[in-house]
Structure formats: structure tokens, C-alpha cells
């Protein structure tokens, strides 16, 4: 598994208190805000702060966050884009 994706899964599980879940059984393509996972707008705000703390990425508009956090895969892509544009 991609290291960034693995780390993100671990961080999401701990940040959102997803008790009993492991990174292995966490499918990176399952919609986080869909019926299977059931996250809501507050979780999205928690993830925004997580990105700022762990990756130095600041999101000012919650809508941008919601867009980026569709799945763990889209989250990883968003982080890579942001980091690339920073170094560019």
C-alpha cells in the first residue's frame, strides 16, 4: 500500500475515533461521506485541522475540504497537489 494512503488511513481512524477499524480493512476508494462510512460536516472540519497539523496544508473554505475528502485516494491526491504547488 502507498505509504501516504496508509498513513492517512491511520490518522483518520485515530482522529475520528473509528473504534475497532484497521487501515487494512479500510478501502481507500469508499466514499467517506456516503452511507457506508457515514461521515458528516463536522468530521470534514476535523479532517481540515488534521491536514493543517500533519501536512501543513491550510484550507479556508470548508467546501474545498469536502471536495478533497471524497475518498482517501482523492485526499492523497489533494495533498500531493498542494505539496507540489508549494515547492513549485
Amino acid at each position: 500500500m502507498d505509504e501516504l494512503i496508509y498513513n492517512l488511513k491511520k490518522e483518520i481512524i485515530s482522529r475520528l475515533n473509528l473504534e475497532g477499524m484497521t487501515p487494512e480493512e479500510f478501502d481507500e476508494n469508499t466514499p467517506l461521506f456516503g452511507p457506508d462510512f457515514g461521515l458528516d460536516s463536522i468530521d470534514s472540519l476535523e479532517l481540515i485541522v488534521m491536514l493543517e497539523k500533519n501536512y501543513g496544508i491550510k484550507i479556508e473554505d470548508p467546501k474545498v475540504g469536502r471536495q478533497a475528502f471524497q475518498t482517501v485516494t482523492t485526499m492523497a491526491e489533494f495533498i500531493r497537489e498542494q505539496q507540489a504547488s508549494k515547492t513549485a
Partner: protein
Amino acid sequence: MSRKVFITGTGIITSIGKNTNEHLDALLHKRSGIGKLELFPTIHSETIPVGEIKLTDEELCSIAGVQPNSGFTRTALIAIIACREALASANIENIKEARTGLISSTTVGGMREFENILTDLTDLSKDGNFRNYAHVTDAGEHTERVADLFGFKDYVSTTSTACSSASNAIILGAELIKHGILDRVVCGGSDVLSKFTLNGFNSLMILDKRTMHPFDAQRGGVNLGEGAAFVVLESEEMIAKYNKKPLVELTGYSNSNDAFHQTASSPDGDGALLSMSRAIAMAGVEPKAVDYINCHGTGTENNDLSEALAIQKLFQEHVPYFSSTKPYTGHTLAAAGSVEAVFSILSIQNNVLFPNLNFENQMPEISISPLKELMQNVEVKHVLSNSFGFGGSNTSLLFSKV
């Protein structure tokens, strides 16, 4: 229920004035109190505008007539100032001559003081004046400060349902009168700006960094404010006995719950619809009899759409004039219900409708828009006031001309 409930007095202090008359003047002249935060240190003072009462705690102590540093929190001080005006305006000199209650409300009570002394307070080796503020975190503390100063004894209570708190205080007061438990009740709420609430709302990302634009397509959230307001509720018997002239009658009220989300309103406005329709039904009037709605109108994406949809659904082709007056005062949280009750009363008394400041762009999802300009010399018989809060709390009050 046969007994009527009348309102005989008002008292209010917010960023736009220290009493009812100053508020009427500010409302008529479109004078907003939103501006830079100056009276306590926070990293947000340059970036987040607020509706701050530009009086220091020392100045408030002097107006309230109490000693500085003697344990009166800012929340208690402004509550005292508003309560004193309310009692005077209702011509109540001797609280003990009738069964009189006090029901206040707050979201964070004395948090403004507590957040500065928390570390010292928990150190058992430290003593000093700050210990006067040791027991100020709970909601009831400020109510007892007011009660003890004015001598309220027959009934003291505090409601705390987030941003609908003061409206629920008014409902309890009305019920206690209707059930013959009290003759009159002073009801309202008080909340001041604190790091706690400022950072709390900021963490929810619903604070507008500009002046707020409720019901606008480009709205970006709320501006917080601070304030206290009380109304005096009295029974029919009190009105008759003392030959009083009531300001308005409280003809309807209702409380319902969204049962949807801790902080968000249901997107279709079901909870708001329920509370508005039940309040109007209680008054025994048709929805089309409502002349004006003082909306909750916080300027958040979620509230304004949900509230507007509920208004559209309830009133259909008879949508009354509506506006949010929060761009004047900012959102005074627990006090909002009583602050806006005072505005609703002023509207009926003066036959005037207050505009929704800063509205520019029509929301695409709805076909209705708020009142943009001040309207004077209009007959205002029934005003509905909405206050909604965290926990899915929805409360509506209906005030009617006597």
C-alpha cells in the same frame, strides 16, 4: 388555556445601544454595531468582526451600580443593566408586591472571566480577588446575581438551549403565568463575547470575515455579538389591577426540534416550519395575518436556506416581509431571542419594519427575498420572531398588537 400574557416592559443593551430608545434610533438609522473587536485580547481581533458593546467592565460596573472586581461578570453586568431598564419600563418599583419570577438564559455565563483565571483557580495554593469569580462557569450564576440585586425570590430559573435560549425563557415565563404560579416574570438572556465562543464558532468555519449578509446568495456566515435583553410578562389580572397599558400581547409560541444534526438545521427546514406554524396556530390566526418575521437569519449557508424554505412552504403566496436584524447587533447567542423580541415589540409599537442590512444578491434556491429598506407607517399587528439553535432547537414567538 384562558389566560392571556402581556408584555409591559423591555430592557436591552447590545453593541447598538444601552437601552430600548437607543436601539430604536439605531434601527431606524441603519446603524450597525459590527466592527473591530477591542476589549479583550485574542489573535482574531484583526480578522473577525464582532458586535461589541464599547464599554469596559469598569464602565459597566459603574452603570450597573456595583463595585468593580467584586465577582460580577460581564454577562451579569449587562443582564443587570437590561433588567433594571425592563423593571423601570414596566413601572415595577416593589418586586415583592406580586409573585414575580426571573428567568434568564445564557450559553457560556461567565466564561469571559473564567478563561483567564482557570489555571490560577485550580491551584489550591493561590488566593486573591480572582477567587470572586470562582463559580461563574455555570449558566445559573448570572441569573442569581440579578435576582439577588433586585430581590427576586418567588421563582428563579435559567434556560440554556444554545441560540434559542431566551425564547425558551419567555415560553416558560408565559406558562408560569397561565398556570397561575406567577403574576409576572422578567424573561430574557445575556451573553458576552469570549475567546471560548469566538474560537468555537471559528472552528466550525461559520464566521463571516466581512459584515454578515443574511439571506444573500454570497453569504459567508455569522458575526458574533454580545448583549442582554429582558421583557416583562404580566397576567391579565396584573394589567387590570394596576391599570397598565401593555406594549403588546404574547399570543403564540412554540418549540420544536429538528432531530437532524447537532449543529446543522435540516436542509428542508422542517423543524423551523413546525415551530412557526404551531406558534401561529396557538394565536388562533391564519399565517397570512403575520405582517413581519424577525428571522433567525444567521447568514450561514445552512440556516438561511433552511429558514427561507420553511417560510416559503408555510406562507406560500402570502409570504410576509421578513428580515434578519443580526447585521445590526451580531448574533448575541442566548440573548438573541430576547434582543429580537424587543425589536419585534418596537416594530409593532412604532409601525415600522426593520431592514435586512447588506442584502444584495438573490439566493437562487428560493423565490423570496428579505426586506431591503426601512418601512415606516405600515400597520404592524402580528410579528413572528424565530430563534434556532444547536441541538436542533427551534423556537418561534408571536407578538400581537393590543
